[in-house]
């Protein structure tokens, strides 16, 4: 399969007065054309920073301090501002978490859609409008002609997220980065939006990076999952493998923490402790202080990703011993 994007040893640091926060520490990932990858982890694991670093939109003072991002054969992490601008919203589109906040309240939907097209394509205003209508139909917005002249507050949350998805489709991008696209929505609408995203990625053959903390959601949409912990990938493999046969103690903990309807009302399992501060990491495995299956070497050495027979890659000394 053709490779769409390859992230190689990416590092993102936030240099603050109180010290350097290493939000992304040496992450490598690849996504093929049309492939869907889920990035899972708890708050502060570096999921969003990873997503934003791909299009180099990390909030200050965050900076890419190492590694490469190779998109369609070019290292875009070295791109100039203008080169990068032409990639953003054009080849790589983003969907944000809260559709109530992502659309500008004082501009009409039509304006906010058309400006995206006009920023990347040489088309007339009329043609741009035609593209807008076409994409709005794709996300099942009824009577799109009327909708173009309306403002965001005239739409419901679900509708707004559809519009944001329509905006991301405008330029037929190769990759969509969706950062918790359903977290701010009603549960009933969450499934609707996810189905829509899945359907569109399949019909348009778009790559998708789905950032979420909801394992159940990712497993339905993506083919592979990367589990992030404290700025590092601790497990990477096919969605099915990770959900049914998690290898890393952290992933196992996450899956056990999911509510299971079949088992009736029972107290949920939880992983003890908290993620270490990204400012001062423990010497060994970052998960060591919370790990139930702790080995002596976990305290001093950092495990690296090793591939198992099943094809899953996992960063844990426990699994190394098994083989």
């Amino acid at each position, binding site marked *: 399969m053709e490779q769409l994007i390859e992230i190689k040893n990416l590092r993102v640091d936030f240099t603050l007065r109180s010290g350097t926060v290493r939000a992304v520490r040496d992450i490598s990932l690849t996504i093929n054309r049309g492939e869907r990858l889920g990035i899972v982890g708890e708050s502060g694991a570096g999921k969003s920073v990873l997503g934003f670093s791909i299009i180099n939109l990390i909030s200050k003072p965050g900076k890419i301090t190492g590694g490469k991002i190779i998109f369609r054969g070019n290292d875009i992490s070295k791109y100039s501002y203008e080169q990068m601008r032409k990639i953003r919203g054009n080849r790589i589109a983003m969907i944000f978490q809260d559709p109530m906040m992502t659309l*500008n309240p004082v*501009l*009409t939907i039509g304006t906010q859609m058309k400006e995206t097209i006009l920023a990347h394509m040489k088309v007339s205003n009329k043609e741009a409008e035609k593209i807008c209508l076409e994409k709005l139909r794709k996300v099942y917005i009824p009577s799109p002609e009327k909708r173009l002249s309306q403002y965001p507050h005239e739409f419901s949350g679900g509708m707004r997220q559809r519009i944001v998805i329509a905006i991301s489709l405008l330029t037929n991008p190769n990759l969509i980065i969706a950062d918790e696209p359903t977290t701010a929505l009603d549960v009933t609408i969450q499934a609707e939006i996810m189905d829509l995203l899945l359907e569109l990625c399949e019909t348009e053959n778009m790559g998708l990076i789905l950032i979420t903390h909801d394992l159940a959601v990712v497993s339905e949409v993506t083919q592979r999952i990367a589990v992030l912990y404290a700025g590092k990938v601790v497990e990477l493999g096919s969605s099915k493998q990770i959900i049914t046969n998690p290898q890393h103690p952290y992933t196992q903990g996450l899956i056990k923490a999911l509510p299971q309807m079949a088992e009736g009302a029972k107290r949920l399992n939880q992983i003890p402790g908290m993620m270490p501060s990204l400012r001062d990491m423990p010497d060994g495995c970052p998960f060591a202080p919370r790990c139930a299956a702790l080995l002596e070497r976990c305290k001093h050495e950092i495990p690296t990703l090793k591939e198992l027979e099943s094809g899953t890659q996992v960063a844990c000394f426990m699994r190394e011993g098994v083989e």
Partner: protein
Amino acid sequence: MFAFAVKRIFQAMIVMLIIACIGFAIKHNFGDPIRDLVGQRVTPAERAEMREKLGLNDPFMVQYVRFLGDVLHGDLGQSYFFKKPATEVIIKKAPATLELVFCSALIIILLSVPMGIYSAIKPQKWFSRFVMGTSIIGVSMPVFLTAILLIYIFSVELHWLPSYGRGETVQIFGWWDSGMLTIDGLKHLIMPSIALSSIMLPLFIRLIRSEMLEVLESEYVKYAWAKGLKPRRVWMVHAFKNTLLPVITVGGVQLGIMVAFTILTETVFQWQGMGSMFIESVERSDTSLMVAYLVFVGLIFVLVNTAVDIIYGLVNPTIRVAGRK
């Protein structure tokens, strides 16, 4: 939108009623009209009769309603000093003040918008730091001091600009004495308008800057960047339009306050406007003229704010819908 405008105008009328009430209360309690009208030789009995005839013994509310009726006809009483209707005196003085306020507002808008935006999007540049630093001095320096400094530098030392008066004026529309149509008149306008704007200008720069900084941090601006828009479009369309909303609200109030601030500026520059007229009328205890000034300035204040509210409604789509329902 129409219902919204009607509502705003109705509210403005209530505010005017209250202002008129305060004005009338001043008139009612200060001085004695009979003493002003008659000489020493009139007997107390005759005075009491006159009092009755002029309705001065009626209850406060009755007199207030009568006063309101007169105000609606444009009659704000007689100025004792000028021996002319107070309205006439004010109308004669108003153009000078309004032109001064207009020029100051123009200076404020033309300078604060670009400076505020620039210091928000490039906060690290030396120019932004310079603007922020000097604006503190601007805010803390009283208007009369700025005015005196200006006069000292540009009139006394450099002889570039005239230090007092309005200079040559031209009459337009038959009654409006304009100083803005002659070179001499414009020269006279420069320093007073700079002095008047000196307090509001730094305030506006800081207001626009802080609002803009906040908007630039918002999700929709981040999203605009993620869409790959050009920086100009993100700043001017996405960020600035949202910055404008609070600035318009505050701006309306400040513009009204500026009319009141003219009292100081006009006194220092001997500007023959309403402000200096008010000071003189206080010195002469010319109550009718004082009340007329109060009502007139109140009217300007209310008019400006109503206009600002309606403009706000035009910029902010959420308000427009609220009005439609």
